[in-house]
C-alpha cells in the first residue's frame, strides 16, 4: 500500500479492483488465537503476501468449514495490519456456525483466506481532527486505521460504544496507539463509561468540542447496521466529512455474484447508466444506483450513502 507521506496528506486506502494489484488466496497459519472478551476472539494470522497490499478498511474472505457447511466463506475486516512481521489479525464475535468453527482453530493450524479485498478508508488530507467511531466489535475495522494514523504522527479520537462492560475488548491494543484521554466509552447498561449508545457519544463529543476550535473533523465509522444511519444523520447535521464501513451479506467477496449491493447516490463524477434507457420495473429513483460493497466498499463516503 502506497502511503502519500508528503504534505499532500494521507491516502490510506485506494480502490484495488484493477488487474495488477495482487490478490492472495491460500492456506495461511494461525499463529495466535485468544479470547479478548465475552464471545469475542482475536485471530492472528501470518500471511506476508496478503498483508503487503492490505490497507485499513479492507477485508478478507475466510473459509469457516472443513466441509460444505456453511457453504460460503465469511467476510472479516482487518483489525491489525503488520506489514513488517507479515501478519494481520481479525477480531470477531461468535454468533453462528461459521464463527463457532473459527473459534476452535488452534495456533499452528491453517485457514483458507482470500484477500485483501474491497476499498478501505482514505482520510482526506485536509482533515485536522480524526474521530474513529466504533460500535461494538466494529472497532476491529478501525484499529488498523488508528495504528496507521499514529505511525504518521496523527492522534485520532476513539468513540467506542458497547452493550456492556464485558464487551470491552483490546484495551492494551487500542491504548498503544491512542492515549487514554482520547478514548471515550459508553455502554448501554452503564456498566462502563457513559450510559448510552455510540450515537450519544458522538453528539456529546461534538458538543464538547466547540465549533471553531477545529475545522472539519473527519469521522471514520464502523459498526452494526443499526448505528450507521443515526451517526450519518449527526454527521450531516454538523456538516462533517465521514466514511462508513458497511456490512452486507456476501457470497463471493470478489465482485462476481453481485449479491452485496447497497443503494448509493450517484455522483456527478461517476455517472452510471447516465443517458441510457433503463429497463422497466426498476425501483431505483434516477439519482440512485447500486454499488457492490465488496468492490466500491465496504467503505463508502457519507455523501454516497442512502438511507431509506
Amino acid at each position, binding site marked *: 500500500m502506497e502511503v502519500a507521506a508528503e504534505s499532500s496528506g494521507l491516502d490510506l486506502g485506494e480502490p484495488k*479492483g484493477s*488487474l*495488477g*494489484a*495482487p*490478490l492472495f*488466496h491460500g492456506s495461511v497459519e494461525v499463529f495466535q488465537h485468544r479470547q479478548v472478551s465475552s464471545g469475542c476472539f482475536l485471530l492472528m494470522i501470518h500471511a506476508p503476501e496478503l498483508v503487503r497490499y492490505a490497507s485499513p478498511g479492507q477485508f478478507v474472505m475466510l*473459509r469457516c468449514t472443513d466441509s*460444505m*457447511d*456453511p*457453504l*460460503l*466463506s465469511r467476510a472479516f475486516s482487518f483489525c491489525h495490519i503488520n506489514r513488517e512481521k507479515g501478519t494481520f489479525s481479525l477480531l470477531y464475535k461468535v454468533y453462528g456456525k461459521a464463527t463457532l468453527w473459527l473459534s476452535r482453530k488452534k495456533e499452528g493450524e491453517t485457514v483458507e483466506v*482470500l484477500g485483501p479485498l474491497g476499498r478501505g478508508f482514505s482520510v482526506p488530507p485536509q482533515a485536522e481532527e480524526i474521530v474513529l467511531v466504533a460500535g461494538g466489535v466494529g472497532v476491529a475495522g478501525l484499529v488498523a486505521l488508528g495504528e496507521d494514523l499514529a505511525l504518521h504522527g496523527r492522534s485520532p479520537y476513539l468513540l467506542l460504544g458497547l452493550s456492556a462492560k464485558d464487551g470491552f475488548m483490546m484495551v492494551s491494543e487500542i491504548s498503544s496507539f491512542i492515549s487514554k484521554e482520547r478514548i471515550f466509552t459508553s455502554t448501554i447498561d452503564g456498566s462502563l463509561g457513559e450510559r448510552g449508545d455510540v450515537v450519544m457519544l458522538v453528539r456529546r463529543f461534538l458538543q464538547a468540542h466547540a465549533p471553531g476550535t477545529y475545522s472539519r473533523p473527519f469521522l471514520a465509522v464502523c459498526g452494526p447496521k443499526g448505528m450507521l444511519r443515526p451517526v450519518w444523520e449527526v454527521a450531516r447535521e454538523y456538516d462533517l466529512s465521514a466514511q462508513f464501513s458497511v456490512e*452486507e*451479506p*456476501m*457470497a*463471493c467477496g*470478489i*465482485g*462476481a*455474484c*453481485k*449479491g*452485496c*449491493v*447497497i*443503494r448509493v447516490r450517484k455522483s456527478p463524477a461517476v455517472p452510471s*447508466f447516465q443517458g*441510457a*434507457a*433503463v*429497463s422497466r*420495473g*426498476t*425501483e*431505483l429513483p434516477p439519482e440512485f*444506483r*447500486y454499488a457492490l460493497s465488496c468492490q466500491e466498499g465496504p467503505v463508502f463516503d457519507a455523501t454516497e450513502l442512502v438511507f431509506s
Partner: protein
Amino acid sequence: MSTTGQTSTSEGAVDLSVSLCGLKLKNPVMTASGTFSRDYARLFDLSQLGAVVLKTVTLNPREGNPPVRIVETAAGLLNSIGLENPGVEKFLEEDLPFFTRFDVPIIMNIQGEDLQEFVELARIVTGAAAHPSRRVSALELNFSCPNVARGMEFAQDPEEAARVTEAVKKVTSLPVIVKLSPNVTDIGAVARSVERGGADAVSLINTFLGMSIDTRGKRPRLSTITGGLSGPAIKPVALRMVWQAAKAVKIPVIGMGGITTGEDGIEFIIAGATAVAVGTASFFRPRATLEVIEGIRQYMMANGISDLSELRGSLAV
C-alpha cells in the same frame, strides 16, 4: 498446469480437449454465466480455462433487484440478482475487451425481453465480434433466468424457445447455445424443441426456483420472495436432467449444477455432457474451475482414459 490440454502418463498422453460447435476447447471446463468477475484474473491465468461464459447482458442496462439478493442455504445459495448489467453497448466497450485479451474462447450470454430483443442483441454482438478486442466465440441464449419478470416464459414454452432460437440463428454466424431452465416437467422436450430450432448446443441447468423465510419477522429473506437455487444441493437433480437432455438430442450438451470437484464433472460427462460449467463453487473456492480441470485430468490418468470421447455418455445402463 498444462495449457495444451495434454499430459503425458506412463500409459500415454491424456487429452482433455473437446470440440464444441466447431470450437476447440483445451479442456471441458467453463465458467457458468453470472459467477465470474475480472478479479479472478488476479488469482490465475484465465487462459487455462476451456471457455469463459460471461454474465447475462441485456439490450438496455439493468440495475438489478433490490437487496437482499442472496441467501445461503444448506449446501446451496439462493440468488435474486435480477440480471444487473450495464447493457450491451457499454459491456462491449468496457467489459468484454478485458476478457478477450486471454487465450480462451469467450461466450456471451444474452437475454431479451422478447424475440425482437434477442435478435437485436445477437446482431449487435455478432457485428462487434469482427473486432479482435470484442471477439466472441459463441452466444448463449438465456431463456431461463427466474429472477426477471419475463425470464421464465421462453424456457417453459418449447415452441416459443424454438422460434427465438431460429430467429437468432438467422442473424448470426456464431454458434448458438441455448441455456435451459430446470423448472419444467420435461427437459428432454424443451431440448428437442430448441434443437429443431437450430441450436448448436444446449447448456443446463440454470437455477431452481426456491425461497427462504425469516421466522422471526415471518418475511421472505429475498427481496423478490423467490429466487434461484444453486450449489452442491442441486447436483443430483441437475445430473438427472443433463442425462435426460443428452439422451433426447444429438447436439452437444454443456452440463452444470453444483459441480465443485473434478469427480462431479466426470459424473456429468458420463451422463452425456461434452463440457461442464462451474458456477457457485467459484464463490467459495476461487480456483474451483482449475480444481475441476485438474480433477478430471487425475480421473483420466487413474482410469486409463486418454480422450474424453471414451467417457462421454458412457453410463452403463
